[in-house]
C-alpha cells in the first residue's frame, strides 16, 4: 500500500493569493493513498524542507507530491531533501501550481479547482513511480583531440599538463593548421610562426601527447567516458620512425611540379615533401597522385638517396582502434570557394588573390621569400585594393549569412604591413562596416587609418575587371562621397568568408553531435555551456564552433580542455536513471527503436529464452545502454509491441496523469 505525502506551498502570496491552498491540501488529503497533506508558506525553505523530511520519516512515506513552483525550479531541491530523509529521490513528483496555475489565472475558484486537478495528476503519477538508482560507468582516462591546429594543440597541451594522455588526430602530414600559414598576427604584429612553432614542438615532445598526423577518424562508437574510435592512418610511404626529416629526398625527387598546398598553390613542391621547415612531425610524405614510382613503378630516387631506408612504397592505410574518455573537436575552418563570384574576377586574374594567399605572398617562407610581388609578372604592386565581406553576411546561395569576424582585423593588418614595408603603395579598403570588438582592436584599426594612411572607403566593390595592360579595374561606389569610383589597381585582395572544414559534417554524424545549418558545431548552451556539445563527453574547441580569431580560439581551447579534464578526473560518471529499457519478453527485435535513437544507445543481442515446454529459444532483442541513453523516449513510440518504456515517464505513469486530469 502506498503512503503518499502531499505538501502544498503558499510561495508567500505567489500561490496563496489566487489558489486556496488550504482547500487544495484538504481535498488532496482525501485522495487514495495519501496519508498526510499539509500546506506551508515556503516549502523550498530550510524549515519547509525539514517539514517534508520529518513527514517522510514519521509517516514512513513511499512517495511525495509537492504542489509548488515549476519542477524546473525546485525538483532537485526536493529530490535531495527526500534522499536526505531516506526516500529514493525519484519518488518525488512536483505539481506546478505557480507558473502554470496561480500566476496565470485570476479567479480563485477555478484556479483552486485546477490546482487540485494538477495535484491529483501528480499523485496518480507518484503511485506508479519506481525507485531509480543512477548507474555508474567508468571513465577511460585519455582524451582525443580531432584537429591539430592551434585550437587542438592548445587543448592537448592543457590536458597533458593536467596529467592525462591525449592523442591529436590531424588529417594533414603536419600539425599547425591555418596559423602556420599566417605571417603576422593582429593586433600585436608578432610573427605567427614564432609563437606557434614552439607550441608544436612542445606538443611533439610531451610524453603524454601522441600526434597522429596524416590520419582521420573513421568511426566513433560508445559514449561519455568510454568512446571507441577508429582512426585511419593514411599511408605516407615513409616510415615515420626512421625518417629523420633531412629533406634529401625532397631535393632529389624529379617530380617537382606539384602545386604546394601550404603556399596556397602559389608555387610548387616535389612529390615527396615536407610541408614546411618547422613541420611536426618533421617527416617526409609521398604524394601518391604525383609520385612516379607509385604511379608507374619507375623511379625510386627517394628510396636510393634515403640513408636510413625510411621509404616504403608498399605502405598501406592502417586502421587503429583506441579508447578515449573524452573527445574534443577542433576541426577548424577554411576560406570559402570563390568560384561563384564572377564579379570579383578571382580565377580570371592571378593578381586577384584571397587574404590567405596574401599571407603566403608576404611570408618570408612563402613563394617570394617575403617580398610582396604580383603573382602574374613578379613586379611590385603600387595600388592594392582590399575587398571586405566577400561571401560573408550574404543572404544568397553563394555566400554565408554570418559575419566571418576575423576579416576586418586581418585586413587592417595587411594594409598596415604593406604601407609599412612599401610606403609608395596606395592601399584601399572597401568595407561595409568595420567591426573591431576586441582588446586593442579598434586602436589597431585607427592606426591603419591615421598613422599608415590606408584609404578606407565605405561601399562594396561592384565589379573587378582585369585589363589588357595587366592592371585591374575596380569599380565601386563610395557611399559617403556619393560617387562611383574606378580604381586602377595592381592587385586585389578578397577577404573570403570562412566556413567550417568539410570533414566536420560527417564527423558530427559519427559523434551524434548537433550542427547548425552552416555546419558549425552547436554548443550545449549558447551562453552557459559554450565549449561543450549537447552530447556528453564531446567538447568544442576553436573555429569549428563559430568564426574566431587566435586569442579567442586559444581561450576556448583551454576552456574545452578544462571541461575535458573535469571529466577525466572522475573515475566514473553517474548516469541519468530516467532512461529507456526494453522488456525482452515482448521485444520483437524489429530495429524500429534503433532507427530513431539519436544516440545509438540501442543495440541488439541474441538472447536465450526458456520456453514453457522447457526448450530454449534464441531471439534477437533490443538492449539499451543506460550510459548512452538520454531519455528522450523516441524509441518508446516507435516500438509497436510496447516493449520499450521510459523510466520516470513510463506509459502507465503518463496514462495515469491523463486519467487523473480527465477524471
Amino acid at each position, binding site marked *: 500500500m502506498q503512503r503518499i505525502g502531499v505538501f502544498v506551498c503558499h510561495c508567500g502570496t505567489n500561490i496563496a493569493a489566487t489558489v486556496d491552498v488550504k482547500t487544495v491540501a484538504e481535498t488532496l488529503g482525501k485522495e487514495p493513498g495519501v496519508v498526510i497533506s499539509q500546506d506551508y508558506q515556503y516549502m523550498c525553505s530550510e524549515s519547509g524542507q525539514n517539514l517534508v523530511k520529518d513527514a517522510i520519516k514519521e509517516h514512513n512515506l513511499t512517495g511525495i507530491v509537492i504542489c509548488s513552483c515549476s519542477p524546473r525550479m525546485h525538483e532537485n531541491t526536493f529530490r535531495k531533501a527526500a534522499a536526505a530523509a531516506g526516500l529514493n529521490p525519484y519518488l518525488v513528483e512536483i505539481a506546478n501550481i505557480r507558473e502554470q496555475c496561480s500566476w496565470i489565472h485570476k479567479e480563485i475558484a477555478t484556479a483552486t479547482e485546477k490546482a487540485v486537478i494538477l495535484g491529483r495528476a501528480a499523485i496518480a503519477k507518484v503511485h506508479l513511480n519506481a525507485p531509480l538508482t543512477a548507474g555508474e560507468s567508468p571513465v577511460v582516462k585519455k582524451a582525443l583531440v580531432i584537429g591539430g591546429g592551434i585550437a587542438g594543440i592548445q587543448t592537448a597541451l592543457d590536458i597533458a599538463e593536467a596529467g592525462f594522455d591525449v592523442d591529436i588526430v590531424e588529417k594533414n602530414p603536419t600539425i599547425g593548421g591555418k596559423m602556420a600559414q599566417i605571417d603576422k598576427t593582429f593586433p600585436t604584429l608578432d610573427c605567427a610562426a614564432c609563437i606557434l612553432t614552439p607550441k608544436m614542438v612542445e606538443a611533439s615532445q610531451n610524453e603524454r601527447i601522441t600526434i597522429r598526423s596524416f590520419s582521420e577518424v573513421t568511426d566513433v562508437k560508445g559514449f561519455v567516458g568510454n568512446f571507441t574510435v577508429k582512426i585511419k592512418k593514411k599511408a605516407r610511404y615513409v616510415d615515420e620512425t626512421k625518417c629523420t626529416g633531412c629533406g634529401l629526398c625532397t631535393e632529389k625527387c624529379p617530380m617537382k611540379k606539384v602545386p604546394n598546398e601550404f603556399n596556397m598553390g602559389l608555387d610548387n613542391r616535389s612529390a615527396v615533401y615536407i610541408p614546411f621547415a618547422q613541420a611536426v612531425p618533421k617527416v617526409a610524405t609521398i604524394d601518391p597522385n604525383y609520385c612516379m614510382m607509385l604511379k608507374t613503378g619507375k623511379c625510386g630516387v627517394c628510396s636510393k638517396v634515403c640513408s636510413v631506408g625510411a621509404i616504403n612504397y608498399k605502405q598501406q592505410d592502417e586502421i587503429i582502434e583506441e579508447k578515449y574518455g573524452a573527445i574534443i573537436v577542433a576541426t577548424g575552418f577554411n576560406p570559402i570557394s570563390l568560384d561563384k563570384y564572377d564579379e570579383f574576377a578571382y580565377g580570371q586574374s592571378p593578381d586577384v588573390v584571397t587574404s590567405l594567399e596574401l599571407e603566403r605572398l608576404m611570408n618570408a617562407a612563402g613563394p617570394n621569400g617575403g617580398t610582396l610581388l604580383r603573382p602574374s609578372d613578379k613586379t611590385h604592386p603600387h595600388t592594392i585594393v582590399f575587398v571586405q565581406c566577400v561571401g560573408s553576411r550574404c543572404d544568397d546561395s553563394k555566400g554565408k549569412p554570418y559575419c566571418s569576424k576575423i576579416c576586418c582585423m586581418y585586413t587592417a593588418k595587411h594594409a598596415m604591413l604593406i604601407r609599412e614595408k612599401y610606403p609608395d603603395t596606395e592601399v584601399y579598403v572597401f568595407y561595409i562596416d568595420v567591426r573591431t570588438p576586441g582588446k586593442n582592436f579598434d586602436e589597431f584599426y585607427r592606426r591603419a587609418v591615421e598613422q599608415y594612411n590606408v584609404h578606407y572607403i565605405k561601399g562594396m566593390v561592384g565589379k573587378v575587371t582585369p585589363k589588357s595592360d595587366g592592371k585591374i579595374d575596380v569599380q565601386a561606389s563610395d557611399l559617403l562621397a556619393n560617387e562611383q569610383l574606378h580604381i586602377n589597381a595592381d592587385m586585389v585582395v578578397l577577404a573570403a568568408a570562412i566556413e567550417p572544414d568539410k570533414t566536420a559534417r560527417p564527423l558530427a554524424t559519427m559523434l551524434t553531435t548537433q550542427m547548425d545549418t552552416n555546419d558549425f558545431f552547436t554548443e550545449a548552451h549558447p551562453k552557459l555551456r559554450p565549449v561543450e556539445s549537447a552530447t556528453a563527453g564531446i567538447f568544442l574547441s576553436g573555429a569549428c564552433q563559430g568564426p574566431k580569431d587566435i586569442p579567442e580560439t586559444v581561450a576556448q581551447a583551454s576552456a574545452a580542455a578544462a571541461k575535458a579534464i573535469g571529466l577525466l578526473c572522475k573515475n566514473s560518471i553517474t548516469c541519468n536513471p530516467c532512461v529507456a529499457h526494453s522488456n525482452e519478453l515482448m521485444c520483437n527485435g524489429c530495429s524500429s527503436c534503433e532507427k530513431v535513437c539519436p544516440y545509438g544507445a540501442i543495440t541488439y543481442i541474441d538472447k536465450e529464452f526458456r520456453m514453457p515446454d522447457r526448450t530454449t529459444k534464441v531471439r534477437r532483442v533490443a538492449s539499451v545502454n543506460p550510459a548512452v541513453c538520454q531519455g528522450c523516449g523516441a524509441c518508446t513510440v516507435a516500438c509497436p509491441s510496447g516493449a520499450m518504456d521510459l523510466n520516470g515517464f513510463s506509459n502507465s505513469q*503518463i496514462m495515469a496523469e*491523463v486519467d487523473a486530469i480527465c477524471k
Partner: protein
Amino acid sequence: MQVNDNKEFQPLIVAFCCNWCSYAGADLSGTNRLNYPTNVKIIRVPCSCRVNPMFILRAFQKGADGVILCGCHPGDCHYTSGNYFTRRRMTLLFSMLDFLGIERDRTRVEWVSAAEGAKFAATMNEFTEAVKKLGPNRRLEDLRCRKQ
C-alpha cells in the same frame, strides 16, 4: 467537461509539453503573468517524441475535448531529432483521425520555445476557443467515461 455558473461549455484541454522548450515556455508565460484559460492542463514529457498516439486517444476516451502537443521548434530539439519524428507521427495520426471523421480542430501540434511565453499563452487561448466552438467531444469518447 467542466460546468461553471454561466453554463457556457468549458472544454477540457490536455497539453503535452516537452520538458526543455514548451514546458519552459509555459513557465515563462506564468512568470510573465500571461493569462490562458484554466481549461488547459499540462502534462510534462521529456520530449514531444515521447507522446504515444495511445496517450492522445486515452485523453479523448476519458473526456478531453482537445489535445495539443507542444515541442521545441524543428532543429532545436534537445535530443537532436525527437520533434522531427513527432512531426511525422502526428501528421499521420491527425490525418487518420480526420479520415475517421473526428473534428480536425481537436488536435494540434505547436512548436513553442522556452523563450516564447507569449506564444504559449496565445496558442492556448486560441486552441481553447477553437475547441469551445466545436462543443463537447462526442465522436471519440467512451460513453462509459462520460460525466454527468
